[in-house]
């Protein structure tokens, strides 16, 4: 059985043991169901480069900051961003925790780790009042790089993405085109977008359209 009941809460490991084909939310576009042409390839002139980091583990953490901070540090070795809109990464850069609201954080870990991380967090959290929810099937992460990436964002969101307002280590939930997404600045030369599955195709088509002017390329 893949689920364990932690006290009064049921957890659930969504991953099969067998090798099972899986589809990211962008597969509809990549398979040219929603678009008629293949994704433009990256070349030396691409002012923006897009790459999907599919199938990562996404966990939503709810609870008090002090309690969660201890558990997250213990399990992942990352301090919980206490300040609003904070984003913290581990040394490898593969695991991150981001502030979503005063009692809500997003953990992103390599795909397949999320269930184990959840269990370890639950072990660490004991009887505290908190919630952990697996959202890995519901969202995907896309990175944008290139000298025109910021301008592409300016076409799409009213959030001020100027480095003076949006430095490395910041993450925000924003209006993006006619949808919304999470926008992150994990590194000087990279933005990350966390897209909701059902909106991902629309957002991807928007980004390609906005990026056409800059010769956007898609890393597959």
């Amino acid at each position: 059985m893949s689920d364990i009941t932690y006290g009064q809460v049921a957890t659930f490991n969504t991953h099969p043991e067998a090798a099972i084909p899986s589809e990211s939310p962008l597969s509809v576009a990549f398979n040219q169901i929603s678009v008629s042409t293949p994704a433009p390839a990256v070349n030396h002139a691409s002012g923006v480069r897009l790459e999907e980091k599919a199938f990562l583990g996404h966990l939503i953490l709810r609870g008090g900051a002090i309690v969660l901070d201890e558990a997250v540090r213990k399990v992942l070795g990352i301090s919980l961003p206490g300040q609003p809109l904070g984003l913290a990464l581990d040394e490898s850069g593969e695991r991150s925790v981001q502030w979503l609201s005063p009692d809500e954080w997003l953990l992103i870990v390599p795909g397949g780790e999320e269930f184990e991380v959840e269990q370890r967090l639950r072990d660490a959290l004991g009887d505290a009042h908190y919630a952990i929810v697996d959202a890995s099937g519901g969202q995907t992460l896309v990175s944008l790089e290139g000298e025109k990436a910021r301008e592409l964002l300016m076409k799409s969101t009213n959030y001020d993405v100027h480095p003076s307002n949006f430095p490395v280590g910041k993450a925000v939930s924003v209006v993006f085109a006619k949808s919304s997404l999470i926008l992150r600045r994990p590194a000087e030369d990279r933005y990350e977008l966390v897209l909701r599955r059902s909106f991902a195709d629309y957002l991807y088509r928007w980004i390609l359209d906005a990026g056409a002017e800059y010769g956007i390329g898609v890393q597959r």
Partner: protein
Amino acid sequence: MFYIHCPYCDEYRDEEEFAPKGQAHIARPEDPETCSDEEWGAYLFFRDNPRGIHHELWVHAIGCRKFFNITRNSASYAILETYRMGEQPRFSAEHPEGEPAEHGAAVNVVDEAGRVAGQEGVKA
């Protein structure tokens, strides 16, 4: 096109991220069954609707998803303050220039304790 300081995210964000939810501080009657039809109607439908200073409930719908209050002038659209659930406004029709800080709690200081308090133990 308002520019609204979210008291939880602690920065100004565009109106497009928010949704207005009507007059603030409308508490649900403690014991609905003892309410008269008029009292229940008043709770459901009757509002102050002032021209001038107004306290209103908003939600940072695309953002932190937290509800909070805004004191705003409904004629000039100037926002005088934003404050978290459970806090009291400094500005009001009676005090358009604001009460001294010690009378109201609507000071946008973000600290650890404040964030936790914003989530616990408050009433509309």
